[in-house]
């Protein structure tokens, strides 16, 4: 009985995605019509037969995700080291402050960033989207680096200094290698969050014609009828994110067993 319940839940959760995936292997223009198995949508997606704007939206999405994830990984790691070395009272406070943006509704983050950019007279476009994505990704990086710092022998930094390393060399040669697994997990997390985001992006993307995947699909859907090539694209993105998630989980598991050993 309990098992049946679990399966029912899983089916309900994954049915929409499954439907998209199934119908990505048929040619029908309208979703729901099955006109026989075909991979034509996939080939046309890669052959460049789709509208130019979908492809450019895809590129924008990846460029933004790459930039935002890289910068927030750097910022978040350095912030985590700083926070970790604070006195325990201050550390708790900052950790709490760090948790707020993660709990905060995306729509609030989006609106506040929009108001911020407007009030400073910054014209919205690629840069503002990247800045916005860095803002909501960085706390997640801090969160994934922190456990590595806690696990680290607290004397290794001093040991490096003692052996003649300058503080910068010690950071580079000892601290970064030690927290690298946390940084990589943080990067992957930031990357997927950035690809996934719609609410913050729509408020910060401006009206210069810049589109990311999520804003493109939204606009496309409102025009009536989705471009059929979105079905294979959604499938590919879903699989990619799934793989990344599995990687993150495996890494977390490995860290746990390392700790026990």
């Amino acid at each position, binding site marked *: 009985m309990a098992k049946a319940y679990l399966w029912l839940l899983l089916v309900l959760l994954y049915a929409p995605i499954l439907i998209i995936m199934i119908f990505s292997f048929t040619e029908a223009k309208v979703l729901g019509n099955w006109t026989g198995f075909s991979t034509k949508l996939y080939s046309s997606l890669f052959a460049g037969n789709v509208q130019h704007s979908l492809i450019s939206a895809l590129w924008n999405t990846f460029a933004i995700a790459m930039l935002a994830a890289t910068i927030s990984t750097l910022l978040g790691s350095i912030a985590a080291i700083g926070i970790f070395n604070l006195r325990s009272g201050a550390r708790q406070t900052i950790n709490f402050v760090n948790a707020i943006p993660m709990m905060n509704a995306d729509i609030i983050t989006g609106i506040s960033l929009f108001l911020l950019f407007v009030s400073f007279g910054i014209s919205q476009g690629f840069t503002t989207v990247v800045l916005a994505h860095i803002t909501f990704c960085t706390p997640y990086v801090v969160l994934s680096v922190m456990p590595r710092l806690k696990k680290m022998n607290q*004397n*290794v930094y*001093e040991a490096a*200094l*003692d*052996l*003649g390393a*300058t503080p910068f060399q010690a950071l580079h040669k000892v601290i970064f290698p*030690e927290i690298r697994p946390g940084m990589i997990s943080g990067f992957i997390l930031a990357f997927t969050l950035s690809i996934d985001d719609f609410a913050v992006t729509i408020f910060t993307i401006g009206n210069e014609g810049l589109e990311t995947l999520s804003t493109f699909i939204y606009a496309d859907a409102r025009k009536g009828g989705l471009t059929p090539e979105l079905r294979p694209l959604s499938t590919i993105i879903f699989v990619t994110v799934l793989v990344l998630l599995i990687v993150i989980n495996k890494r977390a598991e490995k860290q746990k067993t390392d700790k026990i050993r």
Partner: protein
Amino acid sequence: MPLFREAYGLLFNLIVWGYIMQKSDCIISVEHVYKYYGEKAVLNDVNLFVRKGEFVTILGPSGCGKTTLLRLIAGFQTASEGEISIAGMEITQTPPHKRPVNTVFQKYALFPHLNVFNNIAFGLKLKKMPSATIEKKVKQALKMVGMTDYEDRDVDSLSGGQQQRVAIARAIVNEPEVLLLDEPLAALDLKMRKDMQMELKEMHKSLGITFVYVTHDQEEALTLSDTIVVMSEGKIQQIGTPMDIYNEPINSFVADFIGESNILNGVMIKDKRVSFAGHEFECVDEGFGENAPVDVVIRPEDIYIFEPSEAAMLTGTVTSSIFKGVHFEMMVQTPNGYEFMVQDYHCFEAGAEVGLLVKPFDIHVMKKERTCNTFDGKLVDSTHVEFLGCVFECKEVTGIEPETPVKVEIDFQDVILEDNEEDGKLTGAVKFILYKGNHYHLTVFTDWDEDIFVDTNDVWDDGDRVGITIAPENIRIVHS
């Protein structure tokens, strides 16, 4: 502390002499160093001079400031006041990577992402040495610590003892002037610790560099050192050779901390005559004056125990007897209520009547640091005095104007400790307990940040929170 001042003076002369010769014999000098954490002084006017090639151990209970002192020498922390020099160079503010010292940490602090070779080569690579030289030096260092052929091993795959060897190799490969060791053997089991002690001593001999070793283990300190520095509460209590420290402890703290001891209150009647435990003894100490209160130390192995006979100086009943491997440890209670710890190869069962004898040479007499509590206070009115942050009722005082600063004296046995903090006028925590044969001498750290000393028959534990009361008639007011 006359002995200390003497040593200081001697070393000062040595430095002056060394300065003239352009080559100082003193490798580390720590002068008037203070370290504060907020209001609290963790190091309080520390002066220490280490000769080149010496094996110096800084010994003390946890929280005495010994690790802080080492970290100031290593440069991980900076002194609030005072001056530290290494090899004639003033380095008080110098960052750690520019100091000619290397440190071996308690928990090894090896770099887990590097293998054994790269851990040891870390310092040499930073100095941009040619790789052939690095390889040769690393091999030498590994040989020195008995870890040949371990170069390619992952440090996580090594045992605790092996990791500590790598940590030592990583430090000595840089050929520092001074090797600092912060409780390096504390995490090892007893057998391994003993082996490593011997190896460290060998290493010190063959390297010829100065070792500064921090430990709370008095036996380790006695085994390894040329010189022991005993610390307590941020102050150096005594500096001396292991023999000096053991045989001639300067005060009751050192006597209690180093080895087992019987510490009793005594009175120096005149030169070479001391009275304690209700009996007069011949001793070898002199120069304390007549009828001077003193602390007497007798090591448990220096008391002879035998069937009651004419030769006995004291008689008593054995209250407990424990086999300790080499000897038996027996507690003997005298009829007038004093308890002695005696160690002997012969066993006397609990309940046996015995005689005790101490030879004059084995009685060590120490000047008392204090004979009563003294506080700075202020007279509020003729029957009230303020000290330790509280106003106490006292006997009527005449001839002193209110608001005058005064000295307040209270005898140790007149301070009453209460279980409930609320019952006391003052509150504090018990922080040092000394058994004096028939009573306990406690140091209580009051919440006013001053110590109050208490004699009591009640058993308290270290860290107990207590309330403190003092009866008005026991408060003596002295014009200051």
